């Protein structure tokens, strides 16, 4: 498995002329690796053990899983877990919901926070300072402290037990940080850029379209933050889809699944494996952007 570049602290350095120095350095790095790599490998094994257990259990029989103890070898081998998890246990449905919620709420967050952050950063209008202060004040409001009225609101809108209700709740409460990130970024863009755009006759919308691509690091951060948040979210899907398995995401669906059947651990493991793999690939591809985007965001 290769992780995309994002190698912190690996900028090009000056060529060092003194040969002895270079040798000493090489010796030292061999020695350091001899200590660090075995230790890290050992930690990695224990760290990844729950995943290795999941992978091996996905290929075990029910009885085999029950008697395996700490062993990771599936014996005898069983391949029927995957079909059972995907169809009977509804993993296909839960995975689809997880994706729908994550993608939609990420889009909503991105659009609303980029637009608002841009205007807050570059324009003066009545109430601007007050709005900015309120956003900062609500930055750290715990979600459980506002979830009861959110529930009442969604109920009044007739959106309880609907996908739209979950998406609205997920993307309504979390935006303060993202707006501040965009505001910070657009505030720090040089005024000459905007002057040049005006000289060229760009209007409000055109100027925004010119500036938006510059905010790529912030966009990357918002996309990854919100996607991970929504993908892992348990609170909102649990409360807003009570007793509606066809609307639940992975996390909530599995809890109900556990409650209603004698728990099918091998099917569960197979289901995790299938829903986990595509997300893993996406994240491996974007991990480099993540680190660089964050580095850009905290610098600004």
């Amino acid at each position, binding site marked *: *498995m290769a*992780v995309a570049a994002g*190698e*912190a*602290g690996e900028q090009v350095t000056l060529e060092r002329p003194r040969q002895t120095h270079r040798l000493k350095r090489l010796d*030292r*790095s061999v020695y*350091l*690796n001899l200590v660090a790599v075995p230790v890290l490998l050992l930690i*990695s094994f224990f*760290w990844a*053990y*729950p*995943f290795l257990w*999941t992978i091996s259990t996905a290929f075990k029989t029910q009885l085999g899983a029950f*008697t395996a*103890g700490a062993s990771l070898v599936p014996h005898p081998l069983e391949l029927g877990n995957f079909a059972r998890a995907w169809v009977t246990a509804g993993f296909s449905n839960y995975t689809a919901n997880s994706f729908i919620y994550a993608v939609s709420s990420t889009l*909503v967050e991105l*659009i609303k926070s980029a*637009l*608002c952050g841009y205007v807050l950063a*570059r324009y003066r*209008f009545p109430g601007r300072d007050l709005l900015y202060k309120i956003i900062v004040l609500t930055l*750290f409001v715990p979600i*459980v*402290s*506002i*979830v*009861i*009225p959110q*529930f*009442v*609101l969604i109920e009044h809108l007739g959106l309880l037990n609907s996908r739209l209700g979950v998406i609205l709740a997920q*993307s*309504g*409460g979390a*935006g303060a940080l993202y707006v501040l990130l965009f505001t910070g970024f657009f505030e720090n863009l040089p005024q000459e850029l905007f002057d040049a755009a005006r000289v060229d006759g760009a209007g*409000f919308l055109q100027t925004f379209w010119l500036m938006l691509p510059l905010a790529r690091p912030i966009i990357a951060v918002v996309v990854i933050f919100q996607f*991970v948040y929504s*993908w*892992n979210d*348990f*609170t909102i899907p*649990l*409360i807003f889809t*009570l007793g509606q398995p066809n609307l639940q995401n*992975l*996390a*909530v669906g*599995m*809890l109900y699944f556990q409650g209603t059947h004698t728990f099918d*651990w091998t099917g569960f493991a197979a289901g*995790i494996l299938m829903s*986990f793999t595509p997300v893993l690939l996406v994240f491996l591809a974007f*991990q480099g952007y*993540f680190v660089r985007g*964050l*580095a850009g965001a*905290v*610098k600004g």
Partner: protein
Amino acid sequence: MPGASGSRFWIFVFLFPFLVLYGGFTVWPLLATAYYSLFNWDGIQPLTDFVGLGNYQKIWADPIFWLALKNTLVFAVAETAIKLPLTLVVAVLLTRRWLLFKSFFRTVFFLPVILPVALAGLVFTYLLNPSNGALNAFLVDHNLVHTPIDLLGHGNTALIAIILVATWQIFGQYMVYWMAALQNVPEELYEAADLDGAGELQKLWHITLPLIRPVAIIITLLAIVNALHVFGVVVTLTSGGPGQASYTVSYFIYNEAFSEAPFRYGYGSAAALLFAVLAFVFVSGQAVLARGALRRRQEYGV
């Protein structure tokens, strides 16, 4: 900054989506939580049974709320105290130029972040169960213990298990935060320190930490706030149990308001508002520290 004259229409259009969602799902709910907390309300009947501060009096005398609050604070402080230093050390180690297999190790530490925390909780209920879970099978087979330990079955150890599982799950996220912060530390400083014969610990203490301190404070704030929200792992790992020993505030509010009829929206709202105020005080204490650090940063011109 240009005036609003020609752009008033577009300013309004740009603000509109945020204002609607933010107003509806953050600002109004905060005010409504305060309002509901003054009523005895099940969410179904009309909102008429005004009880004033009665709900707050009940909370004052409710030992389960205080237990939940204590557990939440213990969780937040312990989880933060464990994960922040460890993730920093791992991030520093995994960004050293000399280290081999960096990508592999980074991926391993990052893996649990994309496993929804509730699923992580379920996997661990199996791994930690006393009858045939991997942990006890390993300990018994190697004669490390004679009788299996039931980590999730006892009040104190259940909270410890929750802290450890949550730390394992979130570890990679904070590792990546630190790696991002470390990108802004110029490599030449380390080169110079190498020439002076500085050890790895000295470099960490005298170069890395002072340079990333402003970012470190933001990361600490995020860590504490996120830890205060702990919910999913409690539900799946212990359901607040045994008994109510591992209740957290989120779980307490969820239980009062949504778990089973009759729903207690008013009482839940009082707990929710109290929690929001306590969290705000807790976090703004940290923010004062942050401002001090940022000022120092400007004074020294770092």
